[in-house]
């Protein structure tokens, strides 16, 4: 019976229309793409009918455009064309974004017998992906695999980047890919004429068209059959678990000293001799980070701390998860966010360069950068020497004054003489940091945390790893940081109860997920053992 599900567009008895669905988000030019297709068809011997659902649905939401084409010479009179895609009967699906391609698969528009799927591998993240407190992204490789399995042919590329590079819009790139795919009975010239006769931004559109065309024409890259399934080799894709560069990993194992400057040679040497191979790249990042944050002595302190954990490593020749994660989170905690660090990064040369590139400053154009800072009393007292900081926190008058100055926020133009000088001087307070109120507090917190790791790891390695990874919930500034810290403390306080019960590592992982589920700590409070 399988043979009965015809793939061909022409059957001996009757002609069927060419059907095409376009999935895009409002404002992405899905309408422009279907308008071009209609003009292309009508000017070249085809009837065309397109429908869409504009209106409120247009405002950034997922939208479907549907086009049917029918040859004028296939009969007399005007054909009866469809106004909606029929699952299983769509020849071409064009998606401006990878999850929209997935949506087309889910809705049955993309089927293995019939459909050529043309989709951008770029992602426009959905609201849940963006608002998650941690990493809520969907793994793009899974979307690509599903699309490969569901389609007859899957033409893909980062069409959004091509649009950006050519200064055009994604609809023009997709139109190019549609042409290159060879699924419509029209020549490239005819495609380009459709763009030309629309008369708007023609030059940029044609450049973008060329980009999409080239992607579709390129031979389909070989797919590598690995144990987890068919995986195209044109990765990485967003949302996939980040994998460090293999060359970096190898270098960090054999010669970490080559990855750091002259001042950190001794520390790199120590990494090479004292630590498990799998953790070395992370440690290299860690010493650079701590030394940059404070000084070389601080990097030594960092290595001492991680070494105390590495001593308990149960898997030194394998993944060395405990050491690697301790190397990660100890460095992150030791380089906690304070005003000095912020001022330091805001004034660095490489930041100026990056902002300029991002704003596309050209020729004699001039760039100005303004910062939005909102220092709170705590953040100011943090930076001051311990005694002074304590006094400031206690002084009602100083609190009032600082609130008055800062409660509406401060705007600083970093590119101005005054603004830059202010931030520059703030960054120069770095040597004072060691004597500040916050520094003392954070060092104490770090040591208590690592003490807990050392206490629980010998009995339960997985639990030790989980305790290390709980540091993930402490991040952000101001209230966000305070909430994270509160969540972290309540998880640590729950440890004695967790170890008394079954599977403490899994349960701690559950608590961490709950802590990252909302801002208020409500889910964590519900999940905590009584």
């Amino acid at each position, binding site marked *: *019976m*399988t*043979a009965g599900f*015809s793939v061909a567009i022409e059957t001996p008895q*009757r002609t*069927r229309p060419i059907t095409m669905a376009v999935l895009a988000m*409002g404002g992405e030019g899905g309408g422009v793409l279907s308008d071009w297709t*209609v003009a292309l068809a009508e000017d070249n011997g085809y009837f065309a009918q397109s*429908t869409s*659902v504009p209106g*409120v*649905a247009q*405002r950034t*939401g997922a939208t*479907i455009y549907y086009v049917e084409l*029918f040859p004028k010479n*296939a009969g*007399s009179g005007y054909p*009866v064309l469809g*106004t909606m895609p*029929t*699952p*299983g*009967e769509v020849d071409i699906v064009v998606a401006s974004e990878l*999850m929209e391609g997935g949506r087309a*698969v889910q809705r*049955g528009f993309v089927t293995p017998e019939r459909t050529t799927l043309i989709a951008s591998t770029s992602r*426009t993240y959905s*609201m849940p*992906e963006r608002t*998650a407190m*941690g990493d809520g992204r969907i793994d793009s490789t899974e979307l690509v695999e*599903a699309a490969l399995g*569901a389609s007859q042919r899957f033409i893909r590329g980062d069409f959004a980047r091509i649009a950006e590079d050519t200064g055009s819009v994604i609809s023009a790139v997709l139109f190019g890919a549609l042409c290159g795919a060879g699924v419509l009975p029209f020549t490239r010239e005819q495609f380009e004429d459709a763009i030309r006769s629309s008369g708007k931004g023609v030059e940029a559109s044609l450049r973008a068209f060329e980009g999409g065309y080239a992607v579709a024409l390129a031979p389909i890259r070989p797919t590598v059959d690995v144990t987890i399934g068919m995986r195209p080799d044109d990765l990485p894709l967003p949302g996939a678990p980040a994998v*460090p560069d293999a060359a970096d990993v190898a270098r960090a194992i054999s010669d970490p000293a*080559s990855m750091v*400057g002259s001042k950190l040679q001794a520390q790199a040497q120590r990494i090479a001799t004292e630590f498990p191979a799998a953790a070395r790249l992370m440690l290299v*990042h860690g010493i650079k980070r701590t*030394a*940059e944050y404070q000084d070389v002595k601080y990097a030594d302190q960092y290595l001492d701390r991680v070494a105390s954990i590495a001593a308990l490593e149960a898997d030194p020749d394998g993944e060395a998860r405990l050491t690697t994660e301790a190397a990660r989170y100890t460095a*992150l905690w030791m380089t906690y*966010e304070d005003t000095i*660090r912020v001022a330091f990064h805001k004034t660095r040369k490489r*930041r*100026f360069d990056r*902002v300029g590139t991002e*704003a596309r400053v050209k020729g*004699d*154009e001039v760039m*100005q*950068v*303004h*910062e*939005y800072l909102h220092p*709170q009393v705590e953040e100011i007292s943090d930076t001051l020497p311990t005694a002074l900081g304590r006094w400031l926190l206690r002084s009602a008058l100083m609190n009032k004054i600082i609130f008055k100055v800062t409660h*509406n926020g401060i705007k600083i133009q970093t590119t101005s003489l005054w603004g830059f000088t202010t931030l520059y001087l703030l960054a120069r307070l770095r040597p004072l940091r060691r004597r500040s109120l916050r520094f003392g507090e954070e060092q104490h917190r770090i040591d208590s945390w690592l003490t807990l790791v050392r206490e629980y790891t010998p009995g339960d390695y997985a639990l030790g790893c989980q305790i290390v990874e709980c540091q993930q919930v402490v991040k*952000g*500034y*101001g209230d*966000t940081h305070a909430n994270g810290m509160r969540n972290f403390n309540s998880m640590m306080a729950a440890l004695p109860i967790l170890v008394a019960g079954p599977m403490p590592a899994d349960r701690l992982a559950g608590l961490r997920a709950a802590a990252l589920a909302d801002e208020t700590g409500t889910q964590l409070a519900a999940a905590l053992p009584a």
Partner: protein
Amino acid sequence: MAERSFAQEVKELRLGAGEEFRGEGILAVTKALLQSGVAYVGGYQGAPISHLMDVLGDSQEILDELGVYFENSASEATAAAMLAASVHYPLRGAITFKSTVGFNVASDALANLSSGGVTGGALVIIGEDYGEGSSIMQERTHAFAMKSQMWLLDPRPNLTSIVDMVESGFELSEASNTPVILELRLRSCHLHGTFEAKDNRRPEMTISEAVDNPRRDLSRVVLPPASFSHEQEKVNTRWPAAVKYITENNLNEFVAEKDHDFGIILQGGLFNNVNRALELLGLSDAFGNSTVPLYIMNVTYPVIDQEVVRFCEGKRAVLLVEEGQPDFIEQNIQAVLRRNDATVTLHGKDLLPVAGEYSPAEVTRGVFAFMQKYASHLLDPANLPTITLPREDPRSPYAPRIKADLVQGRPPGFCTGCPERPIFAALTLAQREVGEHHVSADIGCHLFSINAPFNIGATTMGYGLGSAAASGLNGKDANKRPIAFMGDGGFWHNGLTSGVGNAVFNENDQLLVIVDNDYSAATGGQDVLSSHAENPLRSTKHPIERAVRGIGVKWSRTITNTYKVAQMRDLFKEALTSTDKGPKVIVAQSECTLNRMRREKPAKVKAIKDGKRVVNERFGVDPETCTGDHSCIRISGCPSLTIAENPDPMRKDPIATVLSTCVGCGLCGENAHAAALCPSFYRTQVIINPSRWDRFKTAMRTRYIGFLQTGVEKRLAGIEPR
């Protein structure tokens, strides 16, 4: 000024006899009105019929030449009442709105109009907002046609049929003294196609001629005893007249009527889907040459008894394809068949879904089930569409080919730079301090607040009814007060009286936030009374605050820049804690960005070309200081504020990032301040064609800053490898 310019479409309205019209359905209707000698047009904008209003708004010249009066009605009720011009005068009039919401509002006037009847043709063109892509409750206009006895046309969705039906609609209306509804489905309105145009026609009588020669006929006024004779007239005179016109002019169609002893009755608007189903099953071709007998009801009300009986004669079974519920037509046909002792078996909602849109997929499955029952020998089992397979079959298009959780919902939301977003950011921050409140939402873009990330708004009761919907929650001993939202569109539509006036009169304690973005934005950016734009045809610039004060509100404030989040937050707190009696009204004013950009972008491009000094602004996030907690996104949700791979090899969570689509509205900075977020946000100003002073200043700064930066990099030199 509407969201789009319709200069191109206006040209299509000028086409003469024999020329080919190319365009979308709703524009074809507009052209058909002019070809039919319409004398006046009114209506209220709303998807999917906004373009009819917008195009006519841009066609003043043509309307003047033809002597056609066009009005942007204040509401659907206003539009419906406007048809009173056709009661005594032989004026052809047309109104348009989205249905069923528009019909709800218009039904008082339409019921009165239908009672007395019309002399000139009266056409109500409605966009039936039903099924996928609809933004309203799922109901049928059919009920209104039945209750007021208005004829309901539901033509086949191709432009020629639709255009013909406009002309026939006027004639039918005049022949039966009854207003006629032309129903266009969502997709028919936006369907691109062609038809052969005719010349435009001047109305036989113009509005001015009518006004100068007033007429009255007491028997047409709805007041006893005339109202009782109207009812008799409806059934004894107008109905038979309509049936006569419909049958004589073959408005309904028969295809292959006597070819088989089974057949399909369908609403004309569903013809393309039914034909597609038959095509897929091998029973029709692309030109609609069905081998299965069809009775196509281009007029769905009234049902023509004798046509139904004629079609069913000698048939074993008939399938009725009627979209939506209740199944008014099925009940009607059942009654007709019973009264005529017909033996045919009628199928309908037993083989097709009871509720929901009749997509080609649903219709194909329904027709397949019917064919299997009555004529399975006509089906070629080797050539069936996969849609007919059970869902469990791996060849079914619905076979699971992707994990469900990989595809997330993507509901519409506020655009990049939307001035309504900061209102809800500010309310979120205010509620963090003064607690959660009951929020009554309204219709308009601001309704997007009900979704993430704001999750604000508990009910929506109809256009302009946000305030009224909070009136019941006026707890005299409560410690909190309800918050109501309303847009400027809803405010002028009816909210001023139904909401504000009501709250003043009943001393309602609510806080009413009126979102004033200069346009009826959700329907396509049409002007309203309070629009700031100069409109040559309409009177604008009437401030909302003046109106609410005029109606008796004592506590009212207008915010002219909604992006000032801290200021808005403080104002919300003040309004929510004020001890003043009566409604507290905040008018939150900032222009719709979509419309602002459409206006400003071309001007900017021109200025740059002319060598003028132009400042481009956008926001950014420093990846070094962003810790990836995304709290900035949770009080914004802006499409341009998203996430990106963390460039820091030690951090795992994605960082926040600002896309190049950022319009520099300023909300990110204001939020960072008002919510005491992280210091990672910055605003970049790029000065194009800088002045000499700009260049001098920058040269000095660059030298000074460069010198200090070199010193810093020296310290770091020993950390990174050379």
